[in-house]
């Protein structure tokens, strides 16, 4: 069964979900200048991870004294776990971001990366000494406690390499880095929006493709909507969702199980939603905690639920002035503030609205065409019978006879096209199966097209082999259309002043009608495609040679193969005098019940 593929939203729990590591490194490098490196810490799978990687940043970020401090005892802000421990505390909200001094008085500062209200990473910068850092005194004091543990003079010699900054300089530096960090987050946010848009687009394509495929197999709208609901329940792990649609002008309703309700109830519920629910960003909702149970109890009663739901979300399906409805989620496992999920739901509602509108347009067009085709039939019948009378009355008038043949040919072609159109636009087939002598039908079809062939000076030869009295169980009108389509095509695509050979061969279990002509090239790669609906041969199309709709062969194939369990084949040969094509119909004598 066709399924909707799950489309995931981009992650947003860490900074590297939102921005590529290489890009982040470049941005940091641009910000860095002389403040001895910048690092970002983020939590990955519960562990704090440094970005860019330690190897890249270590050289510029580490001060020579860090080698000593690494072994110092833990202080309030120490270097043993350095920025990673700080980042963890900041992300957890245990300490505030800002300025931090290490055990020796070397100072750094942290700037949080906030995304959608949460800290997902921390930028660390600095590694400078302030005017009152007093690193030398602290080193000496520590040396006194841990005598002989390290070389004091050697350690002191590194102090000048740590930049000394005034309060004003530090303030300016922090401001500049805050601005830089904010720019980084803007880029990250834009990235996320772009990825989210792509995810929505992917979801939209999934829904559209699902809808169209279901429509193509001829499922009614209600069933398609029901299947979409099942898919939505599965994709979003929702207990139940349903469509409520009302047509203002028409007396029609679509609702879907598991909670099907009648039209009157649907109208009441829609009215309830509109008047009583909270509306925000085009979505209506109601939760249990928002008031007693007034609305939810009413909904419970109207839906016939056993218990009142915890929450209901309703997305309007805006169908212009004529139809309105809601796509409703009952007890969904989502929170109102989950804007990303709501985004998916909106995409869903919007896409379904578009598809239903398109579907309705198609139905209206098809109804219009069917009505037109129907109305054409009576005048066409009058012309056909009138032609017969005129033929009888003016037998000696050759010119008039030609005119009559032209008129009949025109009506035959029009009839042919309308029947083909009716066949492909009608989803249900109603064959009337009876035994017929197929040679009579083939001759009838040939006679009908003879006058059309004569216009191009094309002759039609018929050869019959075997016991032609054998009867074939078939729907005569449909097989008439299939055979006529092949003859029509042969005439249309034959060169003028040529011959069409029609062979009728009666074999043991089946009969074969083959129609051969000489005409334009059919490319090898399109041998199967020519039987697809609306496909027209590349050579014909390229040269814009012959007008056509591209449904003739498709209709013939469907009639023979789907309705009669026969087969249609095309064979082509390139000979010296051109391309020779043979289209053959293989038809069993006995009709088997077909699934139509």
């Amino acid at each position, binding site marked *: 069964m066709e399924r909707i593929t799950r489309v995931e939203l981009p992650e947003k729990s860490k900074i590297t979900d939102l921005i590529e590591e290489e890009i982040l490194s470049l941005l940091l490098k641009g910000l860095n200048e002389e403040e001895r490196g910048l690092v970002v810490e983020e939590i990955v799978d519960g562990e704090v991870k440094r970005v860019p990687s330690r190897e890249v940043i270590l050289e510029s970020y580490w001060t020579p004294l860090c080698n000593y401090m690494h072994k110092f005892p833990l202080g309030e802000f120490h270097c043993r776990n350095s920025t990673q421990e700080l980042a963890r505390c900041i992300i957890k909200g245990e300490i505030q971001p800002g300025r931090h001094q290490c055990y020796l008085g070397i100072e750094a500062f942290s700037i949080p990366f906030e995304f959608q209200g949460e800290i997902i990473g921390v930028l660390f910068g600095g590694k400078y000494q302030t005017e009152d850092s007093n690193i030398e005194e602290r080193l000496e004091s520590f040396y006194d406690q841990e005598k002989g543990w390290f070389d004091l003079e050697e350690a002191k010699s590194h102090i000048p390499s740590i930049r000394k900054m005034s309060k004003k300089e530090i303030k300016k530096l922090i401001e500049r880095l805050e601005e830089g960090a904010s720019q980084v987050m803007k880029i990250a946010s834009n990235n996320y929006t772009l990825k989210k848009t792509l995810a929505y687009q992917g979801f939209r394509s999934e829904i559209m493709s699902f809808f169209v495929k279901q429509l193509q197999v001829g499922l009614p709208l209600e069933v398609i909507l029901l299947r979409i609901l099942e898919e939505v329940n599965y994709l979003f792990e929702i207990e139940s969702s349903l469509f409520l649609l009302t047509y203002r002008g028409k007396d029609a309703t679509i609702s879907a199980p598991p909670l099907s309700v009648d039209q009157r109830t649907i109208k009441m519920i829609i009215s309830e939603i509109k008047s009583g629910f909270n509306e925000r960003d085009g979505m209506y909702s109601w939760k249990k905690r928002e008031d007693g149970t007034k609305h939810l109890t009413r909904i419970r009663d109207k839906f016939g639920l056993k218990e009142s739901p915890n929450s209901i979300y309703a997305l309007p399906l805006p169908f212009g002035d004529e139809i309105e409805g809601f796509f409703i989620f009952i007890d969904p496992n989502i929170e109102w503030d989950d804007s990303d999920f709501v985004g998916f739901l909106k995409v869903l509602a919007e896409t379904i609205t578009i598809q239903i509108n398109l579907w309705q347009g198609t139905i209206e067009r098809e109804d219009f065409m069917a009505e037109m085709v129907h109305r054409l*039939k009576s005048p066409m019948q009058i012309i056909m*019978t009138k032609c017969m009378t005129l033929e009888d009355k003016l037998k000696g008038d050759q010119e008039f006879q030609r005119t009559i043949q032209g008129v009949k040919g025109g009506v035959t072609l029009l009839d042919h096209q309308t029947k083909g159109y009716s066949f492909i636009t009608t989803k249900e087939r109603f064959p009337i199966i009876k035994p017929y002598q197929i040679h009579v039908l083939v001759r009838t079809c040939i006679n*009908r097209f003879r006058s059309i062939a004569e216009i191009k000076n094309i002759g039609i030869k018929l050869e019959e082999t075997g016991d032609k009295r054998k009867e074939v169980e078939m729907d005569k009108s449909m097989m008439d259309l299939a055979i006529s389509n092949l003859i029509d095509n042969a005439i249309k695509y034959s060169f003028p002043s040529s011959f069409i050979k029609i062979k009728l061969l009666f074999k043991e279990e089946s009969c074969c009608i083959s129609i051969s002509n000489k005409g334009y090239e059919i490319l090898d790669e399109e041998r199967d495609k020519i039987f697809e609906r609306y496909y027209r041969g590349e050579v014909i199309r390229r040269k814009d040679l012959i007008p056509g709709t591209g449904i003739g062969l498709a209709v013939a194939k469907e009639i023979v193969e789907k309705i009669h369990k026969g087969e249609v084949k095309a064979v082509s040969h390139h000979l010296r005098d051109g391309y020779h094509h043979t289209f053959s119909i293989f038809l069993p004598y006995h009709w088997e019940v077909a699934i139509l």
Partner: protein
Amino acid sequence: MNMKKKILIVEDEYSTIEDIGERLKNDGYEVDVACDVKEAMEHLKESEYAVVLLDIMLPTREVIERDPEQAGVEILKNLKKDSPKTRVVVLTAVMNHRTHKEIKEYAPDEVMIKPVDGNELCETLKGLVERG
């Protein structure tokens, strides 16, 4: 006139009746025509026909006022019940679910979908008369 050569044309389109009727008469058949259900029923009560050409969609006067399709089916039903030997050719513009159901149930001898070539139609009617 041999009664077996009698054909009834039930069709509301006068032009078609005229053309088909004239051709059949010229070919030696006796032809009666009916433009609606009432006329058709009267003819069927009075005479026995070898073949009836029946347009399934007919205008109705009294029988089934609002349903022209049902009118044709009503005739088909009566024919199969009262005149089982009479061959029936049904002429229809469309083959929808309902037409299909009725046609299958009352099994006419031939079903032709409009428009039908005049010659083809006449040959079909004549063929059925001759086969008896």
